[in-house]
């Protein structure tokens, strides 16, 4: 692909939906300069700056740590700031809003449901033995840190929800990131609310809805492995349940 000046160009096909004008979504093609060091976000910024100011999308840090720029690129959930044009060129790159979320406008989705689930699982520290500043830091060994560290890497980008067909079919499913975050606190030696959180994630809408498709872990840009978090929780939950059935005299 070359422009009239002979410069190489790349074609992006963008999902367009403006609720004031459109009843149905449509796709619109744009030619952007092809630079080998450009990512999809660079192309979107070029389109918005030079070609069509009405294109709407979220972004922030442009370096893969804020979780704002999640989109579908050729049918796969990706961070637009971490997806290089050169991995697709010369094929057309199709950009769509993240699957399984309602679309507000163009690439912008409504993720209220995810935010709600973070509060449902109480994705914050509830200390076992709260300490005041005077009492000093909470002590934790490297081994204790290792137990949950991987799950702290979540940037709430929601690519895992877009990849998950269970969430797509059952919006009540608590979902990969929320469960991984619940486990992040459950396995933190400083936290004391594992029983409370487990009541939520061990429900029918929690880990037991998951069928281990595994795509959540595949698309996660921070290698959190939410699928692993869910399977660990299933194993623990199964042990607890059978113990409570076979040895009901034990305390929970």
């Amino acid at each position, binding site marked *: 692909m070359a422009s009239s000046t002979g410069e190489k160009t790349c074609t992006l096909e963008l999902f367009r*939906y403006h*609720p*004031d004008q459109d009843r149905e*979504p449509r796709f619109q093609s744009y030619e952007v300069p092809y630079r080998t060091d450009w990512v999809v976000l660079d192309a979107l910024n070029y389109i918005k700056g030079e070609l069509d100011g009405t294109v709407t999308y979220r972004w922030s840090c442009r370096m893969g740590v804020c979780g704002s720029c999640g989109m579908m690129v050729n*049918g*796969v959930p990706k961070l637009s700031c971490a997806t290089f044009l050169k991995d697709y060129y010369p094929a057309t790159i199709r950009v769509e809003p993240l*699957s*399984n979320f*309602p*679309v*507000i406008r163009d690439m912008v989705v*409504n993720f*209220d449901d995810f*935010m709600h689930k973070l509060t449902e699982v109480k994705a914050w520290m509830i200390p076992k033995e709260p300490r005041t500043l005077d009492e000093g830091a909470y002590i934790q060994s*490297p*081994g204790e*840190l*290792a*137990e949950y560290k991987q799950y702290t890497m979540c940037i709430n980008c929601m690519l895992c929800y877009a990849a998950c*067909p269970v969430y*797509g*079919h059952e919006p009540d499913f608590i979902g990969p990131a929320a469960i991984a975050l619940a486990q992040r606190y459950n396995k933190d030696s400083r936290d004391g609310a594992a029983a409370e959180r487990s009541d939520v994630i061990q429900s029918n809408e929690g880990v037991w809805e998951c*069928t*281990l*498709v*595994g*795509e959540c*872990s*595949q698309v996660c840009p921070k290698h959190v*492995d939410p*699928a*692993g978090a869910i*399977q*660990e929780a*299933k*194993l623990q939950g199964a042990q607890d349940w059978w113990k409570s059935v076979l040895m009901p005299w034990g305390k929970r």
Partner: protein
Amino acid sequence: MQANSEQRKRELVRPIPGNWWLRRRPYTVFMLRELSAGFIALYAILLFRLMHRAPDQVNFGLLVDELKGPTFIFLHLVVLGFALLNTITTFNLAPRVFKLYRGEEKVPESLIAGAHYAAWIVASIVLLVIAWRA
């Protein structure tokens, strides 16, 4: 960001298409993996029939004769494919379920999967030896 009801009405909801599992390879492999359990269950019916007929020498022999036919050979091949899919996906997913730590060090995933494959080879050899030496 709390959407008001006016905005919610104009939001576009995109339901998952019926052929969702055919659109990307990982989803197709997943669906085949799930269906593999059904095919293995059909095979279990044959195991049941063999056990059921064992007390009757004549009928047992008739069933074994049936196994020589092209239908059963074809079915065995199909189920073998699904059984191997189940074996491989189960063992490769084992590290997801069993996360073991020695202090700070995580036991490598390849070790956990590898242990399962090793157990599979041992179990298979044991079964074949038992069948051979019966």
